[in-house]
């Protein structure tokens, strides 16, 4: 009887223990689901908000290019062509399409349907082919951001809204006439920043990022590898190298914004380097990436088995030859992987660049490392701060592009690691 009851007790206890086991396992699954769910939510959110930015609304207009306005007296003169009143031609075409707009106020709100960028497009088109003068051409005029958002259904028409009900009616007229088209948004990829969302693009920021990364990698890769070789292969283990090692590990965990303060105080104030320049941004990010590269390179170097070194030394190679001929080539894939991962981190970094002025509004595409520039993540930050609804989708689109770059870089790193991974 007692044996039976103790047996039952034991079975009950085991049941409890197994329930605890299942619960524990469930917590693990829940945790990982939370993490991955957050990842999916984030990327899904960006994709849902950003995909529409890859298309842009255009209004197809037939524009008359009057000879007397553009080439008075039949003479084609570049200066006249540059200063001609293209806006008026576009507006006339708009009025032709929407009859009955007479009052000044209505006219003005009608003109707001097309972006100021359309004027520039028209001008470029005429400058590129002066034979068009005198003819009537069809042009896809960039619609203003409000029209674009209205067409995409992100805003509604009505009182107090960005689009009045009158404008909505005109848009419908244009749309019924087949004059409204959604096309691939080339401006997003070919323009610099702009106050007008429909004209704003990431090309300037992309070039800025490339220039900055160029400086970063150029500095941090050789310095990092050299430092790693010294510490791993040549330095005697003593107090001094201990200090360097602790220092490097700590530096890797210093908040990035502190590097920005360093850049501001040392490179801008003390050395007087130009503000907002990829040069300074690159140096700051290089200093920030350096510990990562050193740590990864040291790990790669120390993974090369000592037997290789001994074999080379046994052949009479000098220590430098041992490293350069044998150890470094074997460790190189690992070093490269570490560098790519470090560079990817630097590419996504924002905070230190805010400190050194790379947060300015810059329309021009930077041409050199001393030109004022901004970078992709900072561009995202700037756009995220802009009130226009159209910037929301552009911010998300820029995020998607940045993420694509980063994932590509990490993928390359992973492939490199897989391809050259060696087990000793």
């Amino acid at each position, binding site marked *: 009887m007692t044996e039976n009851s103790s047996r039952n007790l034991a079975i009950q206890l085991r049941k409890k*223990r197994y329930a*605890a*086991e299942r619960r*524990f*396992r469930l917590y*693990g699954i829940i*945790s*990982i689901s*939370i*993490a*991955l769910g*957050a*990842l999916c939510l*984030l990327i899904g*959110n*960006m994709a849902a908000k950003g995909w529409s930015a890859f298309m842009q609304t255009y209004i197809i207009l037939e524009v008359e290019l009057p000879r007397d306005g553009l080439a008075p007296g039949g003479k084609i003169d570049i200066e006249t062509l540059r200063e001609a009143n293209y806006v008026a031609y576009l507006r006339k075409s708009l009025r032709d399409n929407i009859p009955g707009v007479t009052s000044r106020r209505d006219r003005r709100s009608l003109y707001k349907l097309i972006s100021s960028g359309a004027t520039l497009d028209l001008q470029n088109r005429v400058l590129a082919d002066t034979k068009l003068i005198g003819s009537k051409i069809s042009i896809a005029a960039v619609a203003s951001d409000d029209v674009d958002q209205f067409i995409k259904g992100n805003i509604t028409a009505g009182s107090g809204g960005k689009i009045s009900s009158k404008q909505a009616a005109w848009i419908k007229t244009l749309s019924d006439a087949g004059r409204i088209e959604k096309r691939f948004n080339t401006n997003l990829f070919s323009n610099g920043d702009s106050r007008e969302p429909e004209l704003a693009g990431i090309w300037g920021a992309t070039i800025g990022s490339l220039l900055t990364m160029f400086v970063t990698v150029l500095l941090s890769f*050789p*310095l990092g590898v*050299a*430092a790693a070789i*010294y*510490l791993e292969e*040549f*330095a005697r283990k003593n107090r001094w190298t201990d*200090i*360097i090692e*602790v*220092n490097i590990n*700590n*530096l890797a*965990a*210093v*908040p990035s*914004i*502190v590097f920005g*303060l*360093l850049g501001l*105080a*040392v490179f801008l*104030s003390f*050395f007087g380097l130009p503000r907002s320049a990829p040069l300074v941004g690159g140096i700051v990010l290089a*200093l920030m990436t*350096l510990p990562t590269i*050193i740590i990864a390179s040291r790990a790669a170097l120390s993974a090369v088995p000592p037997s290789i070194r001994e074999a080379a030394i046994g052949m009479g190679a*000098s220590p430098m030859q041992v490293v350069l001929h044998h150890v470094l080539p074997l460790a190189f894939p690992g070093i490269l992987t570490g560098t790519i991962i470090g560079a990817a981190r630097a590419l996504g*970094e*924002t*905070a230190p660049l*805010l*400190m050194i002025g790379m947060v300015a509004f810059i329309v021009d595409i930077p041409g050199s490392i001393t030109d004022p520039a901004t970078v992709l*993540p900072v561009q*995202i930050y700037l756009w995220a701060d802009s009130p226009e609804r159209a910037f*929301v989708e552009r*911010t*998300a689109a820029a*995020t998607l592009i*940045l993420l694509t770059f*980063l*994932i590509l870089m*990490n993928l390359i790193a992973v492939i490199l690691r897989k391809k050259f991974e060696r087990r000793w």
Partner: protein
Amino acid sequence: MSPFFAAIVLIVLITCGHFLGRRRAIQTANGSRRLLHSLPHYYGLYVTLWTGVPAVILMALWVPLQPYFLDSFLIASLGDKASGLNSDQLGLLLNDIRNVADGNISSRRNDPTIIAAANRLIEWRQLGYAGLLVITLGAAIAGLAIARKRISRTMRARNAVERVFNAVLFIASLIAILTTIGIVLSLLFETIRFFGKVPITEFLFNLSWSPQTAMRADQVASSGTFGAVSLFAGTLLITAIAMIVAVPVGLMSAIYLSEYAPRKIRDILKPALEILAGIPTVVYGFFAALTVAPAIRGWGESIGLDVASESALAAGLVMGIMIIPFVSSLSDDVINAVPQTLRDGSFALGATHSETVRQVIIPAAFPGIVGSVLLAVSRAIGETMIVVMAAGLAANLTINPLEAVTTVTVQIVTLLVGDQEFDSAKTLAAFALGLALFCVTLVLNIIALRTVRKYREKYD
């Protein structure tokens, strides 16, 4: 003539040096390479280094220094016109002269003194660059000649070259130290200036933070209060929320991945978590501001709570998500370092998997886990973009996660982005905050790295 031209000539010389050194070495050995101490190309490198290094150092000093000297010459030559100006006006004047000299549009392009000065500047620049060319090339040729002369059959060119390489490697390893020193000095220097304007007791103990700029020069002292307490409190609040999310989720994910997940699933899930770690913080910030904060606000309203649109909760939650992979990958390493024998010992006693994890593995890995959490805290405290985009700007001393708080990093960014004057207490305050941030994270990092290291040594 320009530094660019000098650089090209130098490159040509260096290349020549290499060939000359090589040829010379082979000549001294009468064409028989085996008689040489080192391989011929080491002699080439030897001459290359002698040719290039002194010349490049000279050039590197000359190019940035020349403008400074030219400026002071210009000021001297301007005489009366410059002496009456303060530093800002002088800077403007010099800028105009430079612009005219560069052929850019300048507001004063018609001023004769400026045109004269600009012409002088152009002339001096040419002189300077000529000097640069002569000096660097002189150094290069002299170096080449000396090195070439030194080459003999028994000369240890390889050892000499390797000594230089070694020195270069050593210098590279110092950069990290120099960076740290640079950080400490620059922060300390500006912070001391800050405490010259604002008493340190105010910074540490005053509860109010309102860094207004002075309207007039005599207003500085009364312009604002710099009590950082509410910033520290805000930072702590957001960090605490982040850790409440990140530590359990990260730790349990790590446990699931390293103890339970079948290999195939682990191979998929681990890289997926790494993606989470690779997402730039600005993207998290945008996500927090655009999606999470309004969602929390809406949810709060639906149950009748008043939630600030820039609530600490939103920033903290998203920061927690950002930290999850950080905690999980560090804990994963730590858990994997626990020897398999301990697991076996526990299983052999009839423990279930979760009992083994909870009562054997976690206690064994505890120091390492604490270290990882400390590192994660340090990362959360220093995180900038999420809070800049999703947390508030106004200081607010509260522990209510539904209210808006501001953090140390947010204030550094707001104080420094935009117009800066290096003398105002407002700008300097950013450096004082930076120093506080640096010190706190440094202490956390040192403790964390030490704990993790000791823990690793225990099981190695």
